């Protein structure tokens, strides 16, 4: 019996689960190794649980979703969150720092119909998570690595260091040191392959905070190279806003 893989969606853009379909070279091989038992974006076939690995995309932002994720946890042996929404609440977590009622009235003509929680929270705020894959969106090869690792019974080889490592290994010239371009790379979790600096722009933190980042020091430095305080704050308030907000002020 091949292991059963399920893919679930909560508040999100679909990009992370699309990453699975974007594995053009590996998709059919994967389908030969696992039974894709629940993946609404790709198939209307739904096999009942329990599932060996559940990939969960999206954040929890409605009462119904809070209930649904508990059910998914119950029917999943391993639960892996994929992407910034599932792992950190996503960009929609900006509402956590604003007035949700007001947000509703800006967007909807009849806000009373919109069922929504005051916050957008990561999956881990609701149920235990076995592995969190970062990124907005996740990186395809990291996704394949996590799946391959679980199939082989090994620990996923997902490095836990800042983007700078990747830049240096790629041979990219540091955009902040050499050009004065603000960059969140030193406090951002690696995984993307350090694409932004390779394209001449600073990292914008879409993989979320590195483990134990020293945000205070970088913020001070960004100020010293000419960013205004609101610009600095906005830079951290995007796809992983809640995860950056959560970091302690003390150095690691």
């Amino acid at each position, binding site marked *: 019996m091949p292991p059963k893989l399920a893919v679930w969606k909560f508040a999100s853009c679909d990009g992370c689960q699309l990453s699975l379909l974007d594995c053009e070279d590996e998709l059919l091989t994967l389908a030969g190794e696992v039974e894709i038992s629940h993946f609404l974006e790709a*198939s209307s076939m739904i096999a009942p649980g329990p599932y060996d690995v559940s990939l969960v995309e999206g954040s929890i932002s409605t009462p119904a979703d809070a209930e649904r994720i508990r059910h998914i946890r119950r029917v999943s042996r391993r639960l892996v969150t994929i992407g910034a929404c599932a792992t950190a609440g996503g960009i929609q977590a*900006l509402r956590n720092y604003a007035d949700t009622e007001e947000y509703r009235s800006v967007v909807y003509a009849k806000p009373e119909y919109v069922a929504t929680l005051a916050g957008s929270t990561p999956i881990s705020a609701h149920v235990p998570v076995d592995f969190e894959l970062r990124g907005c969106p996740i*990186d395809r090869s990291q996704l394949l690595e996590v799946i391959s690792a679980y199939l082989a019974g090994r620990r996923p080889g997902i490095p836990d260091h800042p983007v700078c490592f990747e830049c240096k290994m790629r041979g990219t010239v540091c955009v902040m040191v050499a050009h004065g371009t603000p960059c969140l790379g030193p406090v951002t979790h690696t995984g*993307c392959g350090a694409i932004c600096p390779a394209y001449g722009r600073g990292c914008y933190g879409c993989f979320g905070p590195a483990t134990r980042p020293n945000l205070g020091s970088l913020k001070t430095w960004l100020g010293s190279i000419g960013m205004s305080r609101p610009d600095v704050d906005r830079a951290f308030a995007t796809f992983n806003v809640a995860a950056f907000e959560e970091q302690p002020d003390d150095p690691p």
Partner: protein
Amino acid sequence: MTHRERTLRVGALARVEGQGAMYVRARDGRVEEVRLDIYEPPRFFEAFLRGRAHTEPPDITARICGICPVAYQMSACRAIEAACGVTVSEPLEALRRLLYCGEWIESHTLHIYLLHAPDFLGYPGAVEMARDHRHVVERGLALKKAGNTIMELIGGRPIHPINVRVGGFYRAPTRAELAALTGPLRRALDDALATVEWVAGFDLPDDRLDHEFLALTADVYPIEGGVPRTTGGRTFEVADFEDHIIEEQVPHSTALHARLAGGGRYLTGPLARYALNRDRLSPLARDASRAAGLGPVCRNPFQSIAVRAVEVVYAVEEALRLIEAYRPPPDPYVAVPPRAGIGRGATEAPRGVLFHRYELDPAGLIGSARIVPPTSQNQAAIEDDMRAVVQARLDLDDAALTAVCERAIRNYDPCISCATHFLDLTVERS
């Protein structure tokens, strides 16, 4: 069979992007209500865009949809550049069009092979279809990959490209880098032509739509911009979009429905683009459409899969042409200094016209934002079409009717994640 009262619920629509469901109520042989339920949780993009810098919407709005992020980036850039009174140089426009071609190829092929074709051949999904038609699915994946390769090279990655900025790009590729795409795209062109031929052979149910079509029009087949036009003969500037397109709440529905001011429902997307721009297709794409039996206007929504395939042929050819003509621009972007103003932008997302409007303060901070994605524009038309589909097939049992409905919905490739301001429904049962 008599149907005194019948409710049909298609919970959790499969093979659409995002989360949706459908609800139908019929009484005494008449369809009374059809609803496409969007239970995509609200994400409030328009609300939290306020107070952001004018440089941010391309990255932020890309996150509305992982399937067509380039469309969001391009519409956002257009709108902000309009607000700041900046126009982008020709080579940069060409590069944008090339990136956008990548998204069309990727998104359309995804839809054709992985989401839609299984319906016509009787499989629950492409993986199951691959058991019997492996080489076909492999062809689709290769074609999709060709689109992604463009996105990856120019955009930095296939989903949520990082290289797009207001005013252009962070880094322009070299000619040699782009030239490396030529080989894969030539192969992709063969695959694209084979795709048209393949889908042309599908057995299409009969159906007919009478809505007006709305699409951008330009000297070339519209992708990264153009002038809105309808089959009813209406033309207007993007700047006047909101005068012509009314989004409103209608009785018995909790979703915003768009209609033409002083007119009715309309449809945007491949069928509309094709109807309004067929003569701007490349000769090869036009021949392919003819060979596939597509007339100058396709009113059977089930033909959309073939129109998409024709558009893939066009996008691949266009990409090859753009690469051939490419000369790196002197600068990868033009400066877009902020100023107070309102700007509007529209481009042709794979699913249809995507409109953005931003109001900026003198420092470039966003005062208000409005995003009108194609799926919300099409919602009313889709429901209307569903009504016709169901009405004509009320004698089918629930399972069969459900299947037809799902398939019909997929004609529109509804991207529910894009539905920035769809409402969450509380379903009423009769």
